[in-house]
């Protein structure tokens, strides 16, 4: 499967000039600050916005080619769209909403697949309700199911959690992860939230001022996007210890974390915030932190201000630590010197396929 996108569009002083490709199922995050042109891109892909110039090919099917004057209308593109504000049809039940696209799909999911989507999104109890009686998270799950059941070849998610308050995001995030882990469909996930991207994305297309700045895997690009988000590491549970701790092994070392509810061998994503790493030139003794990793200083981010971001290599794995400039000078932190990274806290994301 391949999705190729190339777009040029001008509105007012803003100009969009972006090209990228999705080559495998899974989540590609279209990431960038507000106003970078993310929503315009997904609208153009869906056919809700006509770009000045562009070419979009979905699995060999050209849905837009302005040069040849080819424009497939949105209703015939078979590209699913989950909007920020869910846009459920208020005059229909959850069930009728879910089946709206299904009834119009060229290849229809059978009843077993419908049941699967309903179960996957936890909608069994809501099926007869009207959208006005749903919470924000339930609404977005319904919108997600509705888009999935229209059997799209590509699913666009435009900040599906932006309209949901932080506390209720847990109503939808695990469902998005389950969907990602089934990995049957390419998904383009618009977001400006680093933590969402770190948790969900396989690939990142980094957009700024209407242009693609970088594209790569989430592990490659994460440190570049926002150092305060820190490092994203692929890890595997190697054992559960008797003292209620679990050992996570990654390329270059291992971490001790409070016991995880997954069996040994499970693959996970581990995030370490840059501010949660302290540096020491000598191996610290008599210290409460469980995780002290020997590393080499790779580079120092050239930042002005009180802080400096230090990129470390722990074996092949990159870590980022944020320390004060004065500490860096006092400890003589320059590229190449060996240091010990004292990890104060790690976040473990549930994840089937890291």
């Amino acid at each position: 499967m391949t999705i190729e996108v190339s777009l040029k569009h001008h509105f007012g002083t803003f100009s969009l000039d972006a090209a990228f490709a999705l080559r495998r199922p899974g989540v590609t995050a279209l990431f960038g600050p507000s106003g970078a042109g993310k929503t315009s891109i997904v609208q153009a892909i869906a056919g809700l916005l006509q770009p000045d110039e562009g070419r979009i090919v979905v699995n060999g099917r050209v849905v837009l080619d302005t040069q040849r004057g080819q424009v497939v209308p949105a209703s015939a593109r078979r590209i699913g769209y989950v909007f920020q504000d869910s846009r459920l049809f208020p005059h229909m039940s959850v069930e009728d909403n879910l089946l709206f696209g299904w009834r119009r799909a060229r290849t229809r999911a059978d009843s077993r697949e419908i049941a699967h989507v309903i179960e996957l999104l936890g909608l069994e109890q809501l099926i007869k309700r009207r959208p006005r009686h749903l919470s924000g998270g339930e609404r977005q799950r319904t919108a997600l199911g509705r888009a999935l059941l229209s059997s799209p070849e590509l699913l666009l998610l435009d900040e599906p959690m932006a309209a949901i308050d932080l506390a209720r995001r847990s109503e939808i995030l695990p469902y998005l992860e389950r969907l990602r882990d089934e990995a049957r469909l390419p998904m383009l996930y618009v977001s400006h939230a680093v933590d969402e991207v770190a948790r969900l994305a396989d690939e990142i297309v980094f957009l700024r001022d209407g242009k693609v700045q970088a594209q790569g895997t989430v592990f490659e690009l994460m440190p570049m996007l926002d150092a305060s988000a820190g490092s994203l590491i692929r890890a595997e549970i190697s054992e559960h210890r008797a003292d209620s701790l679990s050992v996570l092994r990654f390329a270059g070392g291992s971490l001790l974390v409070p016991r995880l509810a997954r069996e040994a061998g499970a693959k996970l994503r581990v995030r370490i915030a840059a501010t949660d790493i302290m540096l020491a030139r000598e191996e610290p003794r008599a210290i409460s932190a469980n995780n002290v990793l020997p590393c080499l200083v790779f580079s120092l981010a050239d930042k002005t201000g009180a802080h400096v971001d230090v990129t470390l290599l722990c074996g092949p794995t990159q870590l980022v630590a944020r320390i004060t400039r004065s500490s860096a000078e006092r400890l003589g932190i320059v590229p190449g010197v060996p240091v010990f990274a004292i990890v104060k806290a790690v976040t473990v994301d549930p994840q089937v396929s890291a």
Partner: protein
Amino acid sequence: MTELFTGAEAEALLLSLRIAGVAVFTALPFAFAAALLLARTQFPGKVLVDGLIHLPLVLPPVAVGYLLLMALGTRAGLGAFLYENFGIRFVFSWTGAALAAGLITFPFQVRAIRLSLESADKGLSDAAKTLGAGTFDRLFNVTLPLAFPGIVAGLITAFAASLGEFGAIITFVSNIPGETRTLPLAIYTALQTPGGEAEAARLSALSILLALIFMTLGEFAARRARAPQ
């Protein structure tokens, strides 16, 4: 009914209801199209079209009746054409009264439908697009159902206003008992007749009652139209 009202009065009542009913239901598809045009599209001259649609609201009804007579009288251009080719005659006929009432109350329907179309998110139509719904599919399955409360509110208000239409009807189709003599025309006739005050009072009371019933229904429907879905 027969004890309270004379046969002629009952006739005027039933005729009024029939004329108002035919007027608003015939005007409805046109009103919906006009509302859709005003709510969902941008085009040069939109202000002018908007003004034209609302003209009957501010024009003296007698003038509207006169214009209809000019256009559709059997000796006028369009009227003669319709009469000679299709045998359709509006003047001196209850269908002409319905036409006049429908035209006068047209803006009420357009306004109500337009408001409900504007409050119904255009985004829902976009969502339907991405789910594979074409233009007419979206119109019938998304836009129309969402505009439904507005349509009902507009119908009721226009119906109530049609019952009271006087100037356009008497100018265009005259005051013929059993054909074009609706309630307001019957009241006017009673007042012109010596000793007709009692009849005029009864018919006025009836008009007040009808107006109250339909205004209440209209208000109820309008509230439903505004309520979040």
